[in-house]
C-alpha cells in the first residue's frame, strides 16, 4: 500500500480481492475478511410481541461519504494500534443494492490469525456503531429507514 487511507466508499460493486491485496504483505500469515451482504430477510422490530421476519427486496445505502471514510479510516487505524502487526482496509458500498450484493468488505491481516480475527471483528462492530451510513429497506411491508424503529 502506498497510501495510508484505510477506507473507501464506493458507488460501484465492491472487490474482495482488492481489499485482500491492500492488506497482504510478506509478514502477514493470516488474513481475516468480513463480507456483509444484502440478505433476503430482516428482523422487524415490533413494539409488541416477538420479532418477526420480513422479506427484503432491495436496499438503498445513503452515506455522509466524506465523514464515513474518515470515521472508518479512524476505526481501522485504531485496530492497527490495538493489535500490533495488523493492517486493515475497508470498502463500503453506497447506492441501491439487491439481494446478494456486497455492502461492506473488511480485510485485516496480521502475522498470526488471532489478531487478524480480533481486528476484523472490532472494525465491523465499530463501523456499525459510528459510520454515518443509513439504509432504507424496500420490504414487503413498505419502505423503512433501518434503526429508526416503527
Amino acid at each position, binding site marked *: 500500500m502506498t497510501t495510508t487511507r484505510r477506507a473507501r466508499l464506493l458507488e460501484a460493486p465492491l472487490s474482495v480481492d482488492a481489499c485482500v491485496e491492500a492488506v497482504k504483505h510478506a509478514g502477514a500469515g493470516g488474513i481475516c475478511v468480513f463480507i*456483509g451482504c444484502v440478505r433476503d430477510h430482516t428482523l422487524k422490530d415490533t413494539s409488541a410481541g416477538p420479532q418477526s421476519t420480513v422479506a427484503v427486496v432491495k436496499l438503498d*445505502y*445513503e*452515506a*455522509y461519504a*466524506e*465523514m*464515513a471514510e*474518515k470515521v472508518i479510516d479512524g476505526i481501522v487505524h485504531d485496530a492497527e494500534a490495538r493489535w500490533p502487526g495488523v493492517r486493515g482496509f475497508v470498502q*463500503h458500498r453506497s447506492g441501491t443494492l439487491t439481494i446478494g450484493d456486497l*455492502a*461492506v468488505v473488511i480485510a485485516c491481516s496480521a502475522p498470526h490469525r488471532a489478531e487478524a480475527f480480533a481486528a476484523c471483528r472490532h472494525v*465491523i462492530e465499530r*463501523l*456499525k*456503531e*459510528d*459510520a*454515518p*451510513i*443509513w*439504509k*432504507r429497506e424496500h420490504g414487503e411491508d413498505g419502505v423503512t*429507514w*433501518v*434503526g*429508526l424503529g416503527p
Partner: protein
Amino acid sequence: MVTLLYFAAAREKAGISSERLELPAGATVGALLEVVRARHPALAEVLPRCRIAVDQAFTGADATVPDGAEVALIPPVAGG
C-alpha cells in the same frame, strides 16, 4: 454562517438535504438544534434520536459551533 446537512430520515422529514444558517457568535450545538427544531416541525420525532457532527466529528450539545462549520444531523446509523 454554518452549513447544515440532513441525511436519511432527517433529510426526508426536513424536505431538504442542506441549508445555510446565520448563528450568533459563540452559539452552541444545543442552541443550533433549537433553531432547527423551530424551522422544521416535521423533525420533532427524529431530532432527539440524532447525533450531531461538527466538521465531520461527533460533538456534544455544549460545544460551540465555529463560524463556517459544516454541521450534520446523524440519525441512527445502519451501515455494514
